[in-house]
């Protein structure tokens, strides 16, 4: 099978998963008592029964569940996630404003993780059992064990409060494209990327050490290739395969991490909006963000699989 056919087939398999994702998202909110309208009514006791019925009609909340689902889905597919109950603002507008903030944070977290973890993993595997390896392993283990909200608080405590190296918290933040933004980005970015960096280091070290024991490595050395070529050309590509299989899980971790880390650092992204919406019971916002999150993870998964197939030709033939 060619790479292109693999990609097409894999992309098509995303469709049923996305369908399932939409069903679960819808189900989570609509099988529990109290739809948005009854909440609105609770907020505003002056609403008459007739108005309530009209609202239900307008928001597609009348009729059997499956019809409600279809109404919701068809709206979502054209980008309409409904309105905020309190303010009446369109949820899609909130999404569009918040999403770039979270993407910037997530991409920075990933970049930080990769930049730290790949070299650290290679170093540890090549120097297995020596001091540097032990240090890398202890650090990586600590990195996967540290709660990100605590790490964030500690960074603020030490770097901002005691040492004054970073601004504590932006009362009102500068726009993303402003060069100053990087200073605000550093702490939350490092916080969100630490777990991924630690996981990738661990996987990289293990898979690299395993690959180094493979026969093809001995064979490559027996061909007189320099150790540099053996490690960086032959072994690295094989070890990256295991990192790529992990990438989707880690992306999910970063997305989940953004909820916590954005709250710690008052970062105005989807994560902090999510927590705020849960607090205020803004069902439409919570639903929209849940859905966006899941779709992002599904797409990350797809991307990882494609990368996997590019790196390892054997996959395309399964």
């Amino acid at each position, binding site marked *: 099978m060619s790479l292109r056919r693999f990609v097409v087939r894999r992309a098509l398999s995303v469709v049923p998963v996305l369908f399932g994702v939409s069903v679960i998202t819808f189900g989570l909110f609509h099988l529990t008592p109290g739809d948005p309208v009854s909440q609105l009514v609770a907020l505003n006791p002056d609403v008459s029964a007739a108005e309530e019925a009209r609202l239900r009609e307008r928001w597609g909340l009348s009729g059997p569940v499956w019809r409600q689902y279809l109404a919701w889905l068809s709206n979502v597919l054209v980008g309409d996630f409904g309105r905020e109950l309190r303010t009446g603002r369109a949820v899609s507008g909130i999404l569009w404003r918040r999403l770039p903030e979270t993407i910037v944070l997530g991409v920075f977290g990933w970049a930080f993780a990769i930049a730290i973890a790949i070299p650290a993993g290679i170093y540890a595997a090549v120097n297995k059992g020596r001091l540097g390896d032990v240090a890398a392993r202890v650090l990586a283990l600590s990195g996967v064990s540290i709660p990100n909200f605590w790490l964030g608080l500690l960074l603020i405590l030490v770097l901002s409060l005691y040492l004054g190296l970073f601004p504590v918290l932006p009362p009102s933040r500068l726009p993303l494209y402003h060069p100053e933004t990087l200073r605000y980005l550093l702490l939350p970015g490092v916080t969100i990327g630490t777990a991924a960096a630690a996981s990738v280091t661990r996987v990289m070290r293990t898979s690299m050490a395993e690959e180094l024991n493979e026969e093809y490595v*001995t*064979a*490559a050395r*027996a061909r007189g290739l320099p150790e540099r070529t053996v490690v960086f050309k*032959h072994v690295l*590509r094989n070890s990256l395969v295991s990192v790529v299989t992990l990438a989707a899980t880690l992306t999910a971790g970063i997305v989940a991490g953004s909820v916590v880390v954005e709250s710690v650092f008052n970062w105005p992204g989807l994560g902090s909006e999510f927590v705020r919406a849960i607090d205020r019971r803004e069902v439409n916002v919570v639903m929209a963000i849940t859905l966006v999150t899941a779709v992002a993870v599904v797409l990350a998964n797809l991307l990882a699989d494609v990368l996997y197939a590019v790196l*390892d030709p054997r996959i395309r033939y399964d």
Partner: protein
Amino acid sequence: MTAVLEVEDLTVRFYTEEGVVTAVDGLSYRIEAGETFGVVGESGAGKSVAALSVLGLIDSPGRIEGGEVRFEGEDLLSMDESELRSVRGDEVGTVFQDARAALNPVYTVGEQIAETIEHHLGYPPSAARDRAIRLLDRVGIADAETRYSDYPHEFSGGMCQRAAIAMALSCDPELIVADEPTTALDVTVEARILDLLAELADEFDVAVQLVTHDLGVIAGTCDRAMVMYAGEAVETAPIEELYYDPKHPYTAGLMSAIPRVGDDDDRLPTIPGTMPDPIDPPPGCRFHPRCPFAEEACTRTDPALVDPETGEAATLDDDRAAACLEYTEGLSGGLDYSVEVAGGTGEHVEKTIDERDEGGPDE
């Protein structure tokens, strides 16, 4: 004849959690230019470790503890990594047991051959590619041009081994070290690969060190052979003499254990027991716990490798050597096995070692 490879007193140890394993213990042998030299023994005899140590390919926790490995007169063990690398792949090619595992799964077979050529011979990419394709064609891979861009998993086991042979030959080496090259293959494929190896060895005028556990493989391909047991050489002989006149009881045991079509015996004779624990080998002759001819003396004295005719210590130049007390101190019971040769006409040639060697020189 000049020697391509001379190994003298090679000792390799592995420092493991359970203890120190002496995988190769004072091993000496020589391989002459253009000859095919067999190394045979059961699993765990140290054959593969010996072969890999020659090229300095032993990984931690293994360590080469002593000895000399002279390749065309130069000691490989005293070379630094980069000098050694210029020998590996260029002057000494290697063929591994599992050819598919020895190829990197994420690069095409052709790329990997061309990579070696580019590295050692300094060919530009396109010339290296042409040479790789010619080599693939030469080792019998049909449609080599297309097959160049196939990945290892698209090759059959036999084809992988052919590609590995092409890779070993790619820089016109003087010596090919083949470590159990056919063990992982079907019997029919095995025969063809062995023939190919022999044929190419002739054509390229390259010496081959063929490591195997199968005496049958040795018989078909080698000029001389060495039998190893528990890290030591127990017998060295030209191939004919090894078969028709085995001097060491272990060799005799290995040969009696070869199954034959048409044998009326209802039970396949085997060598009793297993290879000794490499961490704590038995005292005296390491084979004595499994040797039907062992006597009390065998538990005390570790026999040296000697010329079985004279009983004098064997040197690298000796073609014939065996390590059994029978040839030095003499055993009271002797070695009373015999070799029967059943020819096509049904005539029987019988020769009893016992008779000839009774009253050896050192008695």
